[in-house]
C-alpha cells in the first residue's frame, strides 16, 4: 500500500469510496504522522479519537451502501479559531486557554457533515494577528521547509501557520484557514501549498473567533487546486446565523474546474511591481504570465492605483474592529480571570487582559482604540473606509478589462523564525499583495509556482470578481498543471 499520508483530499475521498483503503486506515496513518511531528508544533491539541470516530462513521456508511459526503474519509486539521464542541478552542491565546465551547462553528460542522474528521486544533498567530506564526501563546510553528544550507527553523507564514505547516509536512491532507489580510494565502505561499480565501460571505463566520469582522473569511488549505475546490464546496453556504453571509447557491466548483483559459483575460496590475520585492518573486510572476498565456489566456495590463494605500487602510480598519471584538475577553464569563487580592472590576480587567493577551494583540488593540477615539475617528477610521471603497473600485474597474488578476502572493519567500521581530512594520509589509483583495472582499488564491535559489517555495496569487471563485480556481489549475510543483520538504521532524 502506498503511504496514505501522501494523498490529498480527492485521492482519499475517491480511494475510500472505491474501497482501495478504509477511512480508518487513512485516519490512523495521519494520526501517527501527527503524533510524530511534535517538533513542528503545528497542533495545539490533537484529537486522534475524533479522526477515528469520523472515519468509522464513513466506513459504516459505505458498508451500508449509503451515499458518502464530499469530504468522506478525509481527516483534516482545524485551525484553532473555529469553535469545536467539546474541544478546547483558544485562538492561540492564553486568555482562552482551557476554554471548551459547547457549540460547533458552522464551517466545521459542515465539514463533519460532509464526512471529514478532525486530527486536532491547529496552532496560529494569536487571534489570527501575525504573519509568521510567532505570536501564538502556544509557541512558534515551524515550517517543514528549511533554507538550503541552513538548519534555522523557518516561518510557515501566518496567521494560518499551523495549517500550512501541517499540510506541507503531509501530516494532514488539508486544513481550514482563515484570511483577514492574507492569513490563508501568505502561509500557503510560504509552504508550497494552495489556499483560497473565497468571496467575503461565502463561508459563515458563526463560531469563528472574530478578529476583524468585515474582513475575516474562512477557506481551505490543501496541496492541490482540486482539493481546495472540493473542500471549499463543503465549507461554503448561506448561514442565517451570520448576517453577512451570502444568500446564494454554492456552485459545484470541482465539477466546473477547467484549465482551458481561451477567451479569458488575465490582468497584471502594474502597481504590484513594488520596491523591496525579491527578484525571484518578480521572475515567477513573469513565468506565471507565460503559463496562463500557454493555457489560452490573453494577458492585459491593468491598474489598481490605490494599492499603496491599501496596507495603511487595512492597519486601521482591522485593528479598529479587533479592539472592539476582543473587548469580550474580560475575565467575567469565561477564559482567563486574573483577580488580584482586594481588586475591583477595573483591576480585574487590567490584570486579566495584561496577562491574557500577547504583545501583538495588545499592539493592535491599542492601535484600534486610538483610531476610533473621539477626535481621531474621522482622520483615521473614516478616511480608511474611504480608501477601502477606492481600493474596491480599483478592482471593479480592472475587472472591466480582465477576468482574473495575477500577482505575487508575497514580496519575499519564507524567513527564519525570529528574524523579523525587530520592527512590526516589516512584518506587516509581508501582506502588501494580499491585503487589497481582503479589503475588497474578493476571492483570492495562492498556488505554488516554483522553488527559489534557497530551496524555498514561492506562490502566485489569483484574484477574481466577487462570487467568481471558479475563474480563480481555473486559472490556479492552469498554473498548477504547468508549474508541476512536486518539491516537498525533507522530513527533519
Amino acid at each position, binding site marked *: 500500500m502506498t503511504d496514505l499520508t501522501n494523498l490529498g483530499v480527492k485521492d482519499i475521498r475517491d480511494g475510500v469510496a472505491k474501497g482501495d483503503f478504509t477511512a480508518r486506515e487513512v485516519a490512523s496513518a495521519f494520526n501517527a504522522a501527527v503524533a510524530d511531528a511534535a517538533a513542528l508544533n503545528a497542533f495545539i491539541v490533537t484529537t486522534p479519537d475524533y479522526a477515528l470516530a469520523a472515519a468509522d462513521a464513513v466506513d459504516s456508511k459505505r458498508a451500508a451502501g449509503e451515499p458518502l459526503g464530499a469530504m468522506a474519509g478525509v481527516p483534516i486539521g482545524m485551525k484553532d479559531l473555529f469553535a469545536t464542541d467539546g474541544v478546547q478552542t483558544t485562538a492561540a491565546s492564553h486568555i482562552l486557554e482551557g476554554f471548551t465551547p459547547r457549540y460547533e462553528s458552522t464551517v466545521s460542522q459542515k465539514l463533519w457533515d460532509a464526512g471529514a474528521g478532525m486530527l486536532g486544533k491547529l496552532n496560529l498567530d494569536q487571534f489570527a494577528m501575525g504573519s509568521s506564526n510567532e505570536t501564538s501563546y502556544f509557541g512558534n510553528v515551524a515550517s517543514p521547509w528549511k533554507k538550503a544550507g541552513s538548519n534555522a527553523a523557518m516561518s510557515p507564514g501566518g496567521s494560518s501557520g499551523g495549517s500550512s505547516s501541517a499540510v506541507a509536512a503531509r501530516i494532514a491532507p488539508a486544513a481550514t484557514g482563515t484570511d483577514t489580510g492574507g492569513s490563508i494565502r501568505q502561509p500557503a505561499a510560504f509552504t508550497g501549498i494552495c489556499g483560497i480565501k473565497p468571496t467575503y460571505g461565502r463561508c459563515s463566520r458563526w463560531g469563528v473567533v472574530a478578529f476583524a469582522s468585515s474582513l475575516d473569511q474562512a477557506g481551505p488549505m490543501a496541496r492541490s487546486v482540486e482539493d481546495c475546490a472540493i473542500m471549499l464546496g463543503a465549507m461554503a453556504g448561506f448561514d442565517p446565523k451570520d448576517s453577512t453571509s451570502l444568500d446564494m447557491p454554492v456552485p459545484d466548483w470541482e465539477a466546473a474546474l477547467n484549465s482551458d483559459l481561451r477567451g479569458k483575460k488575465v490582468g497584471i496590475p502594474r502597481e504590484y511591481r513594488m520596491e523591496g520585492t525579491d527578484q525571484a518573486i518578480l521572475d515567477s510572476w513573469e513565468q506565471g504570465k507565460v503559463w496562463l498565456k500557454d493555457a489560452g489566456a490573453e494577458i492585459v495590463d491593468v491598474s489598481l492605483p490605490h494599492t499603496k494605500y491599501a496596507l495603511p487602510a487595512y492597519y486601521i480598519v482591522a485593528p479598529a474592529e479587533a479592539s472592539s471584538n476582543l473587548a469580550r475577553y474580560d475575565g467575567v464569563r469565561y477564559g482567563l480571570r486574573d483577580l488580584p487580592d482586594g481588586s475591583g472590576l477595573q483591576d480585574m480587567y487590567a490584570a486579566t487582559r495584561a496577562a491574557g493577551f500577547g504583545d501583538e494583540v495588545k499592539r493592535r488593540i491599542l492601535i484600534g482604540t486610538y483610531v*476610533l477615539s473621539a477626535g481621531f475617528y474621522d482622520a483615521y477610521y473614516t478616511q480608511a473606509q474611504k480608501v477601502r471603497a477606492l481600493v474596491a473600485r480599483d478592482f471593479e474597474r480592472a475587472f472591466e478589462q480582465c477576468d482574473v488578476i495575477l500577482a505575487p502572493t508575497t514580496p519575499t519567500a519564507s524567513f527564519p523564525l525570529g528574524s523579523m521581530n525587530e520592527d512590526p512594520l516589516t512584518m506587516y509589509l509581508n501582506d502588501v499583495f494580499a491585503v487589497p483583495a481582503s479589503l475588497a472582499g474578493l476571492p483570492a488564491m495562492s498556488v505554488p509556482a516554483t522553488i527559489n535559489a534557497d530551496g524555498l517555495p514561492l506562490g502566485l496569487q489569483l484574484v477574481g470578481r466577487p462570487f467568481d471563485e471558479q475563474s480563480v480556481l481555473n486559472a490556479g489549475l492552469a498554473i498548477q498543471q504547468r508549474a508541476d510543483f512536486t518539491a516537498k520538504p525533507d522530513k527533519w521532524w
Partner: protein
Amino acid sequence: MSNYCIQGATGEWEVVIGLEVHAQISTRSKLFSGASTEFGAEPNSQVSLVDAAMPGMLPVPNRECIRQAVRTGMAIEAQINAWSRFDRKNYFYADLPQGYQISQLYHPIVGEGQLLIEADEKAGIAADKIIGIERIHVEQDAGKLMHDQHPTMSYVDLNRSGVALMEIVSRPDMASPAEAGAYVRKLRAILRYVGSCDGNMEEGSMRADVNVSVRRPGEELGTRTETKNVNSVRFVMQAIEHEAMRQVDVLESGGKIVQETRLFDPGTGTTRTMRSKEDAHDYRYFPDPDLLPLMLEEDFLAECRASLPELPDAKRTRYTDVLGLTPYNARELTAEVETFARFETLLAETAKVISKDQAKVATQVANWSLSVAPGVIKALGDEADPANATAAAQASILAMQDKGEISGGQAKEIFEIVLKTGRDPAEIADAEGLKQVSDTGAIEAAVDAIIAANADKVEQYRGGKEALFGFFVGQTMKAMGGKANPGVVNQLLKAKLG
C-alpha cells in the same frame, strides 16, 4: 406657552427640558438573539450564546423588533429611514458581555417626528403643544449587576442583556414639569396603542433620561445636566423640579452649571452627581461590522403602516366629533388602551342591543363607563367579581334603562347584583322587582288620587307656586312605591295640573 417660571432671588428663570425615553420593545425574543425577554425569570435563565458574547457569536436582527420601532415612528408621524445602520458603543462593564452595546448613533431608523400634549388647566398646561421628537433608534439593553448576593463579590444577571430598546429622543421643547409629565404619559399611551412597548415603568419597560437647563426668559440655552434612569412620571416631574431649582440656586449664588450626568434618588426626590463631562466615556462609536445596513422594503413599510391602530389623537377627535362626547370624556376614555377598549366594546354591544346608532348611545355609555360602573365596582370592593362585568350584561342594563324599564338607581342596583353573582340583568330586574312602572293607567290613577287629595296645594300651584311641582312628583313616586318612570310621572302631572 407655559407660564411655568422659577422665581429666583434675582428674577425669573425659564426651564428647558428634553427627554430621552428608553422603551423596551414588546417582543418575545431579544434584539439579536432568540432568547426570551420575559420579566422576572430566574437569573441567567434567558441567555443565549450571543447574549453572553461567547467567542464567535454573531448578532442577527430580530425582524419584529425592527417592525415595532418602525410602527412607533409612524405613530409619531416621523420620518422612517429606509436605510439605517447599527453602531457599536464601546465601553467596559460587567453587565455588558460584548464590551459594546449595539446601538444606532449615526443613522437611526426613525428621524424627526412629533407628539401633541393637550391643554390641561388643572395641570398648568394652558394650551395644546407640539413636542418635537428628534429620533428613535434601536439598541440593546445591558444585563444587571446584583450586589447583595455575596459579601465581597457582585453577581451578574444577563437576562436583560440584549433585550431590544427604543430610545426616543425629544427636542428640548418642554418648559415645565407638567409638560414633561404629559409628554411621558402621552408617549406611553402611543406606545401602548401601537403595542410596541407595554409601558410598564415599574418593571423597567420604560425609563427616562431627563435633560434640564435653566435660562433667563428669552436668553440663550443654559448648560444642561442629564439625570439618568428615572422610572415614573412622578419621578420625572420631581427630578426636573429639583434639578431646575438646584441650577437656579447655583447660578444665583454666582456658580456655574457643570455639564454632567446625575442620578435621581426617589427616596428624597433629589438628584446628585454621577459623573462629570471630564469623566465621560469615549465610546468609540463605529459601524458594527457584524451587521449589514438595515434596509426596509416598501412592502414591509406598507404592512407596518396598515397594521397601525387608530391612535390617541384621532380617536379623541372621533369621540367628540362623531360620537358627540364631551372633550373631557373623550380625553378620559382615550388615555389608556384598556379604557377605550372596554368602552368601545360596550358601545358596540349596547348599540346593537338597542338597535340605535353608536352616536345615539355614546354619551350614555361613556357616562356609565367613566363614572357609574367604576363607582359601583369601587363601592363593592372585594365583593365584586370583575369577570362578571361583561359587555353583554352591561349593555343589557343600559338597554333597559334606555327603554325606561329601569331607573338610574335601579341600573346601579342591578349591576351590583351582577357583579356579585353573575346573574342575568333582565332576570334580576324581574326577580328583584327592580323595574319602574311606565304603565300610564296605573300612574294616572295615582296622580288623580293625589290631585284629589291635595286640592289646596293644586290651588297654590296653579296660583304660581311652581316649586310645589316637586311635592306632587314625590307623592306620586311614593304612591307608586318608587317604581314609577319619572318621565311618565312628570308628563302626566304637567298635563293634569295644567
